[in-house]
């Protein structure tokens, strides 16, 4: 009962935060609200007994993503470009409403929360639960699944993170990789990159 209440309150806060983000034109405030949104999601995951996911959401969503957004804003403007509100475009409203209803209709096919007959719980999960204490012998089953059973997936995830860092370095990293902070020096495709 109390858990249901908690979930309802958290979901209401989530919806309120999302609406506030849409309505704000100050982007700094919007970024802070996104951080709160992530923190609320993390609490929701925790209520749903997924501490590993909650952990990641809190650290990445509320922590790193907020800092990265803020540094981006310090490079760009912190105000949204105000577009004059145009009224009388019912087509857009229809498209949004139909898409939303279609998505909501799609969720009706999903198995209920915690349904033991759900495909996710009846496919390989029983094998993980029965075999992993004996075959891998690690208390945290999530770790054995992520690092061992699904080790190849996790390798791919690490490669994705590495690629993201590589992309950012290649696109923006010239200025700090050259020791001097001269504006023109950073443009050159020089050998100073490997200097440090």
């Amino acid at each position, binding site marked *: 009962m109390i858990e249901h209440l908690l979930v309802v309150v958290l979901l209401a806060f989530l919806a309120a935060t999302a609406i506030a983000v849409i309505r704000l034109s100050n982007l700094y405030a919007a970024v802070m609200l996104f951080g709160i949104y992530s923190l609320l999601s993390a609490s929701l995951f925790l209520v749903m007994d997924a501490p*590993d996911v909650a952990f990641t959401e809190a650290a990445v969503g509320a922590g790193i993503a907020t800092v990265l957004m803020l540094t981006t804003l310090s490079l760009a403007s912190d105000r949204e470009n105000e577009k004059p509100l145009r009224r009388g475009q019912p087509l857009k409203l229809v498209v949004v409403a139909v898409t939303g209803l279609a998505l909501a209709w799609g969720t009706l096919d999903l198995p209920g929360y915690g349904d033991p007959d759900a495909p996710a719980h009846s496919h390989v999960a029983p094998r993980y639960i029965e075999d992993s204490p004996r075959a891998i012998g690690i208390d945290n089953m999530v770790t054995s699944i992520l690092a*061992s059973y699904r080790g190849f997936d996790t390798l791919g995830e690490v490669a994705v993170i590495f690629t993201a860092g590589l992309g950012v370095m290649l696109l923006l990293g010239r200025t700090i990789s050259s020791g001097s902070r001269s504006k023109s020096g950073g443009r050159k495709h020089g050998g100073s990159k490997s200097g440090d």
Partner: protein
Amino acid sequence: MGESTVGASPVTNQPVLRVTAKVLIPLIMLFALYVQFHGDFSPGGGFQAGVIFGSAVILYGLVFGEQRAARALPPGLLRWLACGGLLLYGGVGLACIASGGAFLEYGILTENPVDGQHLGILLVEVGVGLTVTSVMVTIFSVFAGRRQA
């Protein structure tokens, strides 16, 4: 604004912020190590630990200036660590092949398959942690360095 660096920004002159950060940063780093090496028993693992450790470094950079953070963890070192983490992960997989198993079949690494799983998972998680930490810090410092340029 061309002359100003992060080190001279108003945020670094806040004594409350500096003292709080000084107390918190070692604890955050310690917690990151706990999450890294206790991931076998409690929630967490290399990914979460890497992000937490990265946020400790980013907090240091925010409060004490990006240049001091870069002196503690030079960008070149971070690049090596980012590659090293991924290579460590892949290397464990190749070591399994070399020992006669399949890619990432940790059980083959030692006599006792369970010990092999433990060793493999530990090494792989260290690799994940290294790559995640260094990529997070690198992305932040690249953005912050862009602001100064």
